């Protein structure tokens, strides 16, 4: 069975683009436009993979990452951001984010990240 995913981003365009890329590997991709929506969706679907935008309107994706890791320390969360946010990216990675992908999306790079994380999950690591 194909893995499931949750795309968290406040921009509909970005969600669409990511969903389009992820659909090559995943099925049952849900979208959320805020941290609150994301947490509800996460509780409901328990997706194999979450992409979380770092800076969303009025809130910080880092908080979302923390909340999800509270619910499931093994959750695979990939942070999404524009370049130039090195400190936040490192903080997220230290907190437990599995990877980081940069906007604008490079399809190959995103898929490579997804493959790597799903492989880690599959091996039980």
């Amino acid at each position, binding site marked *: 069975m194909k893995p499931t995913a949750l795309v968290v981003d406040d921009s509909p365009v970005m969600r669409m683009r990511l969903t389009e890329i992820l659909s090559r590997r995943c099925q049952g991709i849900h979208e959320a436009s805020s941290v609150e929506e994301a947490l509800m969706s996460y509780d409901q679907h328990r997706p194999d993979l979450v992409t979380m935008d770092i800076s969303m309107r009025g809130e910080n994706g880092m908080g979302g990452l923390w909340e999800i890791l509270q619910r499931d320390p093994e959750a695979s969360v990939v942070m999404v951001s524009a370049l130039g946010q*090195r*400190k936040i*990216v*490192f*903080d997220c*990675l*230290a907190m*437990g984010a599995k*990877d*980081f992908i*940069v906007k604008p999306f490079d399809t190959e790079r995103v898929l490579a*990240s997804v493959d*790597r994380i799903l492989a880690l999950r599959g091996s039980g690591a």
Partner: protein
Amino acid sequence: MKIAAKLQLLVLGNALVFGGVAGLNTVLLAPVREMKAEVEILDEVQRASANLQIHTGLLLTSPFALQRAPFLEAADGYRKALSNLDTVRAIPRQNPGLEGAFAAFKTLAGFAVEPILQIQILRDRVATLSEKAFLDPSFASARRLRNLPALEREKLTMAFEALNDLETAISDLSNLYPALTRSSEEHRADIQAEIPRIEASVFAGTAALAVVLFIGAMLVSFLITRRIGQSLGSVESSFRQLGSGDFEAKLEVKGSDEFGSLEISFGRLVEQLQALVGLVDSQRRAVQTILDASDQGFFSFGADLTIDPEHSAGCITLFGPHFRQKPVDQLLISDPDQQKEFHQGVALVFSGQANPEVVFSFLESEVAIGNRILSLSWKHLVEGKILCTVSDLTLVKRLESLAAKDEAEKHILINAVTGRRLLPRFYAEADTILATLTFADASLLTSAHLKPLLQSLHTLKGDAGVFGFEMTRKAIHEIEGLIDEALSRPTGRVAFSLLAQILGKAFRTEQQVVSSVLGSSWAVEADTIPVEEKTLRSLIGWFSGRLVAADPGLRKLRSLLMVNLSQMLAHLPRLSYQVAGSMGKQILPWSATGADFSVDPRSWDSLIRVLPHLITNMVDHGIESPDQRESIGKDKRGRIHLEVTRSVTGIVLTLADDGGGISWTEVEAKARERGLVGEEEVSQVVREEWLWSGQLSTRESVSEYSGRGVGLSAVRAEVLRRGGTIALATKPGQGTTFAISLPRGARP
């Protein structure tokens, strides 16, 4: 794995890497070979242009005494050398700056072609007149001239004019040479400077690649050495203990290598160990040699950020001999916050918490240390090490900025050559503004005075942009900002002398670029005042309402608007060469004859705009390929001729070619095929009408230039609009002639 086996692998790996590097070099050095070929082509262009310059010079000193052949040969040689330039492809791939310079050079070199063609054409024209008349100085004297019949006098006048044109063309060409030579020499120097750099970077590139391949090998050898060193240490101390009679000594050996089972005699063991250590050391030295051979720096560091003792000699060059005394974050980064982030990032790598590639994409990729710009790349090695590869970008950056300067100068020069007519005006305006600023006082600060100044500054900024005077343009922009800022403050004071300095410095520098290459007289416009055509026309309009048409003053004014018809037709030959060239055909140099009289350009413009249709038609359909022409005994170069005849009834333009002519059988077959006509007989008038109306093409395919028949119908429409007629005459195998007759006083 046994140590001996590991070492064998290592040796094998190295051999593979060396073989690979040799092959790689051959591939990577290919561009350098191409560049060397390019230098040869440039040399050839320069030789050809020098040769041409000599012959042009001779032509200038004695236009008629000289045999034409040497000049024509030199001109052909030059054009041939130019065409070779087109085969050059190496530079564009290597360096965008050089690509621009090369394009500029090619453009500049191309400028010489037109004067050459003109000289050839003018030579032909003059040659048709009596050369003897010119060679005999007394012949041209006023008395003899007056005694000549009118027709002869006219011919002579035309010849003198042709001679004048010839001299202008030659001096234009001579003016181009310094620029051409300089550009060529600079370009050549650029390339020659580039070759060693590319060779070096190819070497560094292969070295870097080799190193990447080597990283594994280096690391393995590094680790083995360390382990053997540790093992040896413990073995040695065991020996010592044994020697001192401590038989309780245990050999503490890590791993399951040979050391693990010490069942052989101590003597053999020592020998074996020494051999192994020797082998490992030589491996290490080999790796070190490779690392040191490249200019790049390689060093590794662990979680504590101290730099390992194994590093390439390049590090010493780049960072100084004591660089290991600092931890890596302090070595590379000066800002404490950035250092902290760097530390946080590498910690994520060492702890295995993050994908190293993600972290590395955030680590510094370029740093400035001392006066060097260094590029850094990062690689995660096993055993808790990060390898940093350092390359010196300083030279590359410096070359890039040099190339940019060069590019800017070439831009200025090309604009100064192509826009020569407008250059003096630009200079004059800049000088006026500079003088205004220099001698300005506080009274200028009233808005009544400042507004016109700002306006002319703005205009000058536009001009500077047109002429590629980038520094001047930026300086004006800055000045505008300063004035705006001063005005926004209540006690607005403008330091005009400062503004004059800013503008003066930029403008003089760029002016110097022009005068150093083209000479200071390039922008000198003797005794002329630029008047806009619009102004002149309204002036004429004003006078026309007050003076009779025949008034000499009014006629003089009108004549200012006139241009020589031959000038308006001058682009047609070039067009024919161009079209012919694109089809692999050749055309003898030609120019319109009989067009040496003044006309109002407005009234001729629309007609002249449709003539290219006839020309392209002739080249495409009329003129045969060189092979074909030779096979039927014609000159392989086609002949085109445009003659303008004036008479009391009007003007006739006759345009003729010596090509294959129009095949009426083919035309008819085509028309029947198109269903334009049935089986019945058709008259010649009908056949011609098919051609004029654009209903068919006698060619199988439509070419880039002609073939749709649209051109001919456009020409006819224009001629009819003017109340004229157009006729064509064709003889199979001998060519086609179009005759356009325009009634006198035809509507413009």
